[in-house]
């Protein structure tokens, strides 16, 4: 199976300067806020998890041509159809022509504040000791994944140092594929920039990311 993400942008050339927005507002049109709200409300139904959402968005073929909330909209429509909650025809018509599918729960207005305040913690009780310790040199997995992953391409096959232990967390790669939470140890791993980019980098530049244990091998 070939899995293509269009969202893995770290280090990719050709995107030009960072453009700051003069108005600096959170939403630039009403529809953007509706998409945010629909996404959060549907997320609360329990029909999918956040890693499935990220997978649905990053594999949109026209990802790089879309605005941020167009990506959210495309991802939401895809998931709704993939899970059988709506049909493509219903989406086009904007009208229900089939009864709803069963689902876990609906987010009611009076539950929003408590739901948001609680969040969705991903830390889990460890069931096995951590394989690595602070200060240890590790190398990241070199091969690309054939599924959603949170190991960025620019950090594949690179040697870094474990800086911090972050506990055991729901493993995004498994979670996105519907394989359950599969909690794994999570570590902050730090890299010197010349390990990532070669000689072009200025001294004193380091990059870190949070690596689940399956992303790492001893160096």
């Amino acid at each position, binding site marked *: 199976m070939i899995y293509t993400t269009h969202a893995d942008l770290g280090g990719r050339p050709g995107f030009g300067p960072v453009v700051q927005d003069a108005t600096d507002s959170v939403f630039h049109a009403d529809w953007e806020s509706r998409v945010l709200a629909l996404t959060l409300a549907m997320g609360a139904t329990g029909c999918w998890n956040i890693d499935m959402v990220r997978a649905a968005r990053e594999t949109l073929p026209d990802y790089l041509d879309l605005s941020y909330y167009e990506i959210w909209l495309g991802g939401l429509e895809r998931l709704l159809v993939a899970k059988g909650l709506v049909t493509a025809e219903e989406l086009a018509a904007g009208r229900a022509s089939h009864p709803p599918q069963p689902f876990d729960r609906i987010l009611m207005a009076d539950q929003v504040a408590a739901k948001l305040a609680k969040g*969705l913690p991903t830390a889990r009780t460890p069931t096995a000791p951590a394989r690595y310790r602070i200060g240890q040199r590790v190398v990241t997995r070199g091969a690309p994944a054939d599924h959603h992953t949170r190991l960025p391409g620019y950090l594949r096959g690179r040697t870094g140092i474990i800086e911090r232990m972050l506990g055991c*967390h729901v493993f995004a790669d498994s979670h996105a594929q519907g394989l359950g939470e599969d909690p794994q140890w999570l570590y902050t791993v730090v890299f010197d920039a010349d390990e990532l980019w070669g000689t072009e980098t200025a001294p004193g530049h380091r990059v870190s990311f949070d690596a689940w244990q399956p992303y790492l091998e001893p160096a």
Partner: protein
Amino acid sequence: MAHDHDHPDHSELSEVERRVRALETLLTQKGYVDPAALDVLIDTYQTKIGPRNGARVVARAWVDAAYRDRLLRDATGAIAELGYTGRQGEHMIALENKPRLHNVVVCTLCSCYPWPVLGLPPVWYKSAPYRSRVVRDPRGVLLEFGVTLPADTEIRVWDSNAEVRYLVIPERPAGTEALGEEALRALVTRDSMIGTGFARTPTEPT
């Protein structure tokens, strides 16, 4: 944010507006969403949650050494003391900027951002130029934000790719010794808590 007048034929709606309206109508008809909950969600992120939350955390850390220590040891707990918890801030780490260390945060894979303390991310944070370049040429990107750092300052870029979220504690500006916590809050900009800016000095216009 509601339209001040309605157009029954929706003739001036853009394609994407039409799509979103169709989606909302459909999901409401199906009973998957509560329309009133949508309005509460929008109001929350438009008016209740934003970078002034993070500014309270930073100003408290500047004036209260014990709080600062708790924040650096257990940011999730210290931030919760001020009432900020939950969605996209479940697991927080605070990063302290110092004279020879500058932290800057990105999510190269999407747009992960500490919502309870900073609200929703600005467009540039989610954009391809920032996500692609800040891990590779942070000095160049910071220059575009008007931030220049001494050559011997280490720049540490944090790619927040998992469910841990990062809040930068900017350096307290010089000449603010006499200011109280409330006045200090006004100096803490959103960008200074991402690492693409400094806190304001008291004489700078807001």
